[in-house]
């Protein structure tokens, strides 16, 4: 409850102040769900010896209210994990909105999603939970909220969204006890994590141009997933996990083309900590490009294809600096993805498949899922996560972490 408590206090304050603001009573709604989530291994035990990736009961309460130009929303979870983490609580989101005709502001913990990718991320620089993605949790848990203030300004010629976060929030990487993560220095157990002591900022500018949704993105902050640095190269004693400085400049466009919707996105990752590319512990500067197409080939069916490429800018410098024995990344990584969805039974049964394949290192990730709404309040999802590829790849390292999952949720 430790982390939820300040949020709940804030909610109570919000309600009180709304009540004091005028004779108009706040219009408050309470909702939530109870959920069971199980994911069991199909390719062997975890590094910690257990046979589940996830085994948890969870309850969420969501309080929502508004009065005049003000609105507040708070979403808090309590969960009990059967795989050693015990009972925990978490404020998923909790913010206050103030809306005027030409501008608005949102302050508090909020989920941000930028860009057009489907489980590929270019300009979506905001925190994610990869463990949730790989452990068969519902999609919403892929995103982590960020404590920030977001200003929106909407003059006629474009819309502007400025995000200022006083402190950095990392993405959650899978737990090494549950997933077989590639570790170049497995013997070293003395590890410490250094969080950036600065905040981060992002700006998104978007508008319609000739029927296309066009956006520009700027981000200044840090790499979301940590890098590893040994204290010395020969006989290292300690590893430091840190988040290198990063800036991202990008653009996207999406609109109708033929029978479907085309998506194009570009991002330049400026590795501010290592612009020369000579530090092998810091990701090199990169250009990322995405082209996607989604259409409906038949009734109640949808197909989405993506081509995604990452291009490393200073590959020569990286290659020269990389110590012998460490796996070398290619200059270019091409990934193809497909998502197929079919709805049945008045859209209460959904069969979907997502598959990603990296042509360079044969990295692959396949996620089939069957979801059925038993009633308006209860739904179940049965799915699987299958991984494969080279031992050092993003998905290849998880080749022994295949799992089948079941999600059951009762909403109220």
């Amino acid at each position: 409850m430790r982390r939820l408590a300040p949020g709940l206090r804030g909610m109570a304050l919000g309600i009180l102040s709304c009540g004091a603001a005028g004779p108009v009573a706040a219009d408050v709604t309470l909702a939530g769900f109870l959920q069971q989530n199980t994911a069991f291994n199909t390719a062997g035990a975890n590094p910690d010896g257990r046979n589940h990736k996830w085994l948890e009961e969870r309850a969420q309460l969501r309080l929502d209210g508004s009065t005049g130009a003000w609105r507040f929303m708070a979403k808090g979870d309590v969960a009990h994990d059967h795989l050693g983490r015990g009972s925990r609580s978490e404020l998923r989101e909790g913010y206050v909105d103030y809306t005027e005709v030409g501008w608005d502001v949102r302050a508090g913990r909020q989920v941000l999603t930028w860009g057009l990718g489907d489980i590929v991320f270019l300009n979506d620089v905001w925190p994610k939970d990869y463990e949730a993605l790989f452990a068969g949790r519902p999609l919403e848990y892929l995103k982590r909220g960020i404590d920030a203030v977001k200003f929106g300004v909407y003059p006629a010629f474009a819309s502007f969204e400025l995000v200022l976060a006083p402190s950095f929030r990392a993405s959650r990487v899978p737990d090494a006890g549950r997933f077989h993560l590639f570790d170049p220095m497995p013997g070293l157990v003395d590890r410490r994590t250094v969080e950036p002591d600065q905040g981060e900022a992002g700006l998104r500018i978007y508008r319609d141009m000739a029927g296309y949704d066009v956006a520009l993105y700027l981000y200044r902050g840090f790499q979301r997933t940590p890098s590893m640095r040994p204290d010395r190269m020969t006989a290292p004693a300690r590893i430091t996990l840190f988040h290198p400085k990063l800036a991202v400049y990008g653009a996207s466009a999406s609109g109708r083309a033929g029978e479907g919707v085309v998506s194009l996105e570009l991002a330049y990752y400026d590795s501010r900590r290592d612009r020369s590319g000579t530090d092998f512990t810091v990701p090199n500067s990169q250009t990322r490009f995405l082209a996607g197409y989604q259409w409906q080939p038949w009734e109640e069916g949808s197909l989405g294809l993506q081509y995604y490429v990452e291009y490393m800018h200073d590959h020569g410098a990286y290659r020269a600096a990389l110590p012998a024995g460490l796996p070398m990344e290619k200059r270019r990584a091409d990934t193809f993805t497909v998502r197929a969805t079919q709805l049945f039974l008045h859209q209460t049964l959904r069969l979907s498949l997502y598959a990603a394949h990296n042509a360079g290192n044969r990295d692959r990730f396949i996620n089939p899922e069957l979801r059925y709404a038993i009633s308006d309040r209860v739904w179940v999802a049965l799915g699987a996560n299958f991984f494969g590829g080279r031992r050092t790849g993003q998905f290849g390292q998880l080749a022994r972490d295949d799992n089948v999952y079941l999600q059951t949720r009762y909403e109220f």
Partner: protein
Amino acid sequence: MKRLLVAMTVLLPFAAFALTGEEVMKKSQASFLYPGKDFKARVVMKLIARDGQERVREMTMLRKNMGEVGGEQKYFMYFFQPADVKDMSFMTYKYPARDDDRWLFIPAINMVKRIAAQDKRSSFVGSDFTYEDVSGRDIEDDGHAIEREEKLAGTDCFVVKSTPRAADADFAHKLTWVGKESFLPLKEEQYDRKGAPYKLFTAEEIREIKGFPTVVRRVMKNLQTGHRTEVSYLKADYNLGIEDSLFSERFLRQAPRKWVD
């Protein structure tokens, strides 16, 4: 001059009589899908299976005409029910004679997605109505002929047979009973390619709102599966002064309380 006036007066009833099938359907489109400058309703849809199992879809629907009758329209929908789509918003820019633009806001990950979808046959939120049944079908997509005129529950109607020019519709042909006074569709029978009755639309209740006769209760029944959808419009109203700016990504992400109550 006087003679001309007399001639016109005499001819007028005949002029009304001489409407073509296409003209009837155009007038019907005007009174069914285009009345007012804008429109708002809280829509409750009950999806009822043959065995009686019921599911409820509830939303606020906002519509604004961007030009004249038969021209561009913008739709905004905000979902209240079921719980797993609460706060989801959906926006359509509807164009005559070309495919619509559509956007969906997914609150779980706070993402706005542009989506491609087939209008012609896709079910609207799993109901027995297709997107076309909800926001209309281009008049030019079908050939229309007045089959006969008859009374339906005491109301004089044109019965218009519409046959799609292309094979991409959900039906092979349909008969529409259009009220001669209101020009609202009061009943519609859709037939499949084998000529068998396929779907049946009935206007169950019509109320006059700000001078516009409005179908506030309607049913679409699939005669082949026995599944039906009952739709009620609560708090329906016209000419509210809905701003153009509502139909934007900004409000898709954060539906204004003023409009979605």
